[in-house]
C-alpha cells in the first residue's frame, strides 16, 4: 500500500520536477499582487488590532493561496485524466487499492500547495511582514493543503465536464477566498452568513494561521475540524473510486 501511494506520488513528482521553474514563477504572480494591493497599497492606512494590516493579511493570503494551489493541482488534472485523457484507467486496471490512489494524489497536491506557501512566506518577509512561523503554523498549513487537495479529488470525480470544474472554482473557492477571514474579520456580517462562514474549512485555516503567526495559542478545535474534513473527503474519494466501476 505504501509502495502504491509512492508510485502515484512519484508520477506527479516527475511531472512537477520537469516544470519546477515555471511552476514557481507562475505561483509568485497572485501573491505578489495581493501583497502589493492589500499590503502596500490599501493596507498602509489600516490598523487591525494594534498591528499592521500587512501582518494581518499574510496568514490569510497563505491560507487562500495554499487552498487554490492544492485544489487546482489535483482537481483539473484528475478531471481531465478521468474524462478526456482516460489515463485514470491505467490506475483502475492496475492491481492497487483505491485508497492508495486517493492518498497519493492528495499528498502530491498538498506538496504543491506547500511549495507555493514557502514562496509566499519568503515574499512576505521581503515585503516587511512579521509572522511567527513554528511547527503549529506548519501543521495548520499542511492540514489546509490536505483539506483542499482531497476536496479537489472529490470534485474531479463528481464533475462531468471541464466547465463544471471551472464553475466549482467560481461558486465555491472564489467566495471562500474572500469571505473566510482572509482579508477581514467577518464579525460584522449578518448572523446567517457568519454561521455559514464558520462551517467552511478555509475560515478555520485563516483563524488558526493568524492566531499562531501573531504569537497566540494554536486553536486545536479548528485543527480537529480540518482533520475531519480531510478524512471525510478522502473517504468519499475512495468510495467514488469504487463507484466509478459500476
Amino acid at each position, binding site marked *: 500500500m505504501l*509502495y*502504491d501511494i509512492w*508510485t502515484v506520488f*512519484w*508520477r506527479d513528482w*516527475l*511531472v512537477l520536477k*520537469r516544470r519546477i521553474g515555471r511552476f514557481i514563477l507562475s505561483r509568485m504572480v497572485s501573491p505578489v499582487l495581493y501583497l502589493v494591493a492589500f499590503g502596500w497599497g490599501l493596507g498602509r492606512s489600516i490598523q487591525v488590532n494594534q498591528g499592521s494590516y500587512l501582518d494581518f493579511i499574510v496568514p490569510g493570503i497563505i491560507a487562500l493561496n495554499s487552498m487554490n494551489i492544492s485544489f487546482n493541482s489535483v482537481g483539473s488534472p484528475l478531471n481531465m485524466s478521468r474524462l478526456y*485523457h*482516460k*489515463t485514470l*484507467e*491505467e*490506475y*483502475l*486496471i*492496475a*492491481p*492497487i487499492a483505491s485508497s492508495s490512489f486517493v492518498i497519493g494524489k492528495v499528498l502530491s497536491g498538498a506538496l504543491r500547495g506547500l511549495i507555493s506557501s514557502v514562496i509566499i512566506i519568503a515574499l512576505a518577509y521581503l515585503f516587511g511582514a512579521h509572522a511567527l512561523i513554528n511547527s503549529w503554523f506548519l501543521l495548520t498549513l499542511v492540514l489546509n493543503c490536505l483539506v483542499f487537495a482531497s476536496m479537489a479529488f472529490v470534485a474531479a470525480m463528481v464533475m462531468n465536464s471541464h466547465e463544471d470544474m471551472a464553475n466549482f472554482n467560481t461558486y465555491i473557492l472564489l467566495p471562500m477566498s474572500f469571505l473566510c477571514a482572509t482579508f477581514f474579520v467577518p464579525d460584522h456580517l449578518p448572523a446567517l452568513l457568519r454561521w455559514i462562514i464558520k462551517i467552511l474549512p478555509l475560515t478555520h485555516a485563516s483563524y488558526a494561521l493568524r492566531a499562531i503567526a501573531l504569537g497566540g495559542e494554536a486553536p486545536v478545535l479548528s485543527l480537529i475540524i480540518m482533520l475531519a474534513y480531510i478524512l471525510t473527503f478522502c473517504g468519499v474519494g475512495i468510495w467514488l473510486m469504487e463507484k466509478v*466501476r*459500476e
Partner: protein
Amino acid sequence: MIQIEKFSKKFGERIAVDGLSLKIAKGEIFGLLGPNGAGKTTTIRVLTMLTRPTAGKIVIDGCEAAHNEGHIKAVIGVVPQHFNLDIDLTPWENLELHGRLHHMLPEVRKQRIGELLKYVELDDRANDMVQKFSGGMKRRLMIARALLHQPKILFLDEPTVGLDPQVRRRLWDLIRRLKNEGLTVLLTTHYIEEAENLCQRVAIMEKGKLIAMDSPIALCQRFGAYVVEWADEEGTKTKFFTDRGEASNFAATLMTTTTLRQTNLEDAFVELTGRKVVG
C-alpha cells in the same frame, strides 16, 4: 483461460450485454465482432475489471472475477480503444509507471522496459515526449505497456483503428508472434479482414447478444462457399451457393454486372447482422 457464463450488463434501463456465454482457450486469438454499439467494448471493460457486471459469472485464469479482482488484474494486459498514455511523461516513464503499478522489481522492470521498447521498435524514442508521437507509435507503446508485466491474456479493443495499412500489418505480425509465445488474445474489431486474418475463432455480437460463434472459415461456409454479388435499383444484392457451377449458372441469368467469388467473413457478417458495417 476465459470463461463467461450468462453475463449481462445494464446501464440504467439500457441493456448493453444480454446473457453472453463463451469460453476462450489458452493460446487462442479470439475475435469479438459486431456493429457499433453491439456491446463489444462493454464486454472488454467488464473482463478487464473496469466495469462490474450486472449479472453472470466471469472466470479468468481459474479465478472468479467477483472474488479475485487483484489476481486477475495481475495476469491481464489491456490495450484500450482510445490512446490513454500519460502525455506528460516519456515512453520510458510511461512504462516505468506501469511497472511500478504492477509491483515489478526495479532490475526486472528496467530490463523488460528496454526489451519491449526494442520489440515495438521505439527504443530510439524512449526519452521523447509521448505528446509528439504518431497514432501508430502510441498504439505500439500501449501494446508494450500492456505486455510489460508478462500477462497471460492480452485484451485489444480495436487495436488498428485509424492506422496506416503498413502499420496495421506490422501490428498483426506482432499479435501473431505473441500468440506463438503462448499468450491468449481477445480482440474486438470491426475490420472484418482483421478478424479473418488473425483469429482462430470469432464471436459475432449484435445488440448485446451473441448471434454466432465459430472459426472464420466455418462462418463463411455456413451460407455457402460461393457468393454472387450484383447491383440493381435497390442496391447491392448477394446470393450464396454451395456449388460453384450453380453460382455461375445463376450469374448468367442476371442482366447486370455480376461478381462471383468465394464467400468471405464480411458476407457472413452482413448476412448475420443484416446491416453493412462501417470499416
